[in-house]
């Protein structure tokens, strides 16, 4: 039981919980207590330290901003108004709060607000669906498009859209970059002839890719009336992020250990067998490193691309909140920041787990 729990934990990348499991089962308490301190308590302490620094920082920024506001009122409108503003700020009234870095508690509050908001919108959506169910059936029967919910998407909906876009982009990158990487890796001639192209295109900014994709997709979809923003954003994400996989795959394939190749030569394996039995398995660790970089780059550029392509998702959520400038906009942006970071981390863990499944290289990834 204990061992299988530990095995599962290690497999999904939560190996740091191992000493806790061991401690709970009453095994070697001194050693495992030290391990728990090292692997669990110390990281928690660092989180607390981070929150502490954040809290103090935001408090001091808040005070600076508040003092500035009061002084400005004093200078422009006199003592009476300044006192009013001071009282207003101290009362916590949202209409006159200084606009600056939100504190951890504000961000947490915004997080709860966003969840509440999601519940409400979901309810709304369900109600809408129920109301239009019979009507839609009729419309479909008549060959018309059904009426869809066009209300504001909730935060959770935005997350889902973003994840969908990233996966579509990642899949595109995978389908383009790995085969090309393998082919280029196998042939010195191809590699040297296409190297310039790869080197030039690799550092191109996501924004430029988006514009390029936009030019092409716009022309190709002239006749369609559908929403092209999703297509544009996922293709851009794919094009931005595929380079890591391309370069790593080509490198992995071209630098397979000479020993393995010698074995293949001595056994006179055919080309097909050589590629699928020797070269590909041998380069899987590097291919996976590339894919992991690709996925994290995809997630990173996604925000910028959504923001520009005006496709729904976390990127546009952040941008809208920034433009909105409401009282809790800042804290919502920070909520989005953490959600983005956390999902990025989860995606990387998923990739690591898949890598452990299919690659011979069992080293613990970073």
């Amino acid at each position, binding site marked *: 039981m204990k061992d299988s729990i530990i095995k599962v934990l290690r497999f999904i990348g939560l190996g740091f919980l191992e000493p806790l499991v061991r401690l709970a089962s009453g095994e070697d308490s001194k050693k495992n207590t030290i391990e728990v301190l090292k692997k669990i308590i110390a990281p928690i302490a660092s989180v607390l330290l981070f929150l502490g620094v954040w809290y103090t920082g935001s408090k001091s920024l808040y005070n600076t901003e508040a003092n500035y506001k009061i002084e400005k009122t004093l200078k422009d409108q006199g003592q009476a108004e300044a006192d009013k503003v001071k009282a207003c700020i101290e009362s916590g009234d949202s209409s006159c709060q200084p606009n600056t870095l939100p504190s951890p508690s504000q961000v947490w509050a915004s997080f709860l607000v966003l969840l509440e908001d999601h519940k409400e919108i979901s309810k709304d959506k369900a109600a809408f669906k129920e109301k239009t169910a019979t009507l839609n059936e009729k419309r479909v029967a008549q060959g018309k498009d059904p009426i869809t919910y066009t209300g504001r998407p909730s935060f959770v909906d935005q997350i889902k859209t973003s994840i969908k876009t990233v996966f579509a982009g990642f899949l595109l990158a995978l389908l383009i970059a790995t085969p090309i990487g393998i082919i280029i890796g196998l042939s010195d001639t191809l590699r040297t002839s296409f190297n310039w192209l790869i080197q030039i295109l690799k550092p191109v900014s996501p924004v430029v890719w988006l514009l390029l994709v936009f030019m092409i997709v716009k022309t190709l979809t002239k006749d369609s009336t559908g929403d092209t923003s999703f297509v544009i954003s996922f293709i851009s994400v794919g094009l931005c992020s595929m380079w890591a996989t391309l370069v790593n795959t080509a490198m992995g394939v071209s630098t397979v250990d000479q*020993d*393995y190749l*010698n*074995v293949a*030569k*001595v*056994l*006179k*394996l055919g080309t097909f067998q050589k590629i699928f*039995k*020797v070269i590909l*398995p*041998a380069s*899987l660790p590097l291919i996976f490193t590339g894919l992991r970089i690709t996925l994290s780059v995809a997630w990173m550029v996604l925000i910028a691309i959504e923001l520009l392509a005006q496709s729904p998702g976390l990127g546009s959520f952040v941008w809208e909140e920034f433009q909105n400038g409401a009282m809790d906009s800042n804290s919502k942006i920070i909520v989005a920041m953490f959600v983005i970071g956390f999902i990025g981390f989860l995606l990387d863990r998923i990739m690591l787990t898949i890598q452990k499944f299919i*690659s*011979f290289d*069992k080293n613990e990834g970073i």
Partner: protein
Amino acid sequence: METKTILQEKFASKDVMLDLKDLKKVYPTPKGDYVVLEDLNLQVKKEEFITIIGHSGCGKTTMLSMIAGLNEISGGKISVLGSSIKGPGPDRGVIFQAPSLMPWMTAMENVMLGVKKVFPHGSKKEKEDICKYYLSKVGLDGSFHKRASELSQGMQQRVGIARAFAIKPKVLLLDEPFGMLDSLTRGELQDVLIEIWNKEKITAIMITHDVDEAIFLSDRVVMMTSGPRAKIGDILPIEFERPRSRKAVLAHDDYYKYRKHMIDFLEH
């Protein structure tokens, strides 16, 4: 007894398995050609076990990889059973210094890789039986389905030996196969190797740095001169009865004469 050496022994051509004739290897460098091997002549009889000994960098490995077909020949000729070789092939099995197993495959799959190639028409069962036979011969009965990366160095090299024998090559080339092992494991593997070789009697050429290993395993020890332009300096026939036991070999009077002869050559 004085040890006798014969440099240019001629065998009847029907007995010759491997024939190296005026073999030459040149590496072009910016400062002109670097001649590694020159005028290298060696005949190896059928069912003979030969070890090659010489200083590091004298071109032993170059010679062996030329025989394997992994390295181009600059001049001269290498022929197996009278026909000259073209590139690598499964008629010349190689046991590399590093075990060179595919770490993502099991021991069985590693051996199977070659067996499939050499016996393409056998049934799956037959091929598996071949793999199992050789894997148990090298003492890996319980580890058929362990991944190569889970095996110790010594175990991996056992798989390497099984893989080489399982394809039934005409010539077996061993490039310091035990060089990376500790001396205990090395002794064990020498026993494994010689036991399986006694059964199969495949013509073998083995590079080694170990004088005792050379005496214990081989019919003739070929000593190479130091490079550049290395060639064969001396050939020492080891005339112990086969099958040999380590104990008997060590206790034999000639053992130290052979040993002295080789060390004299190497320190010369």
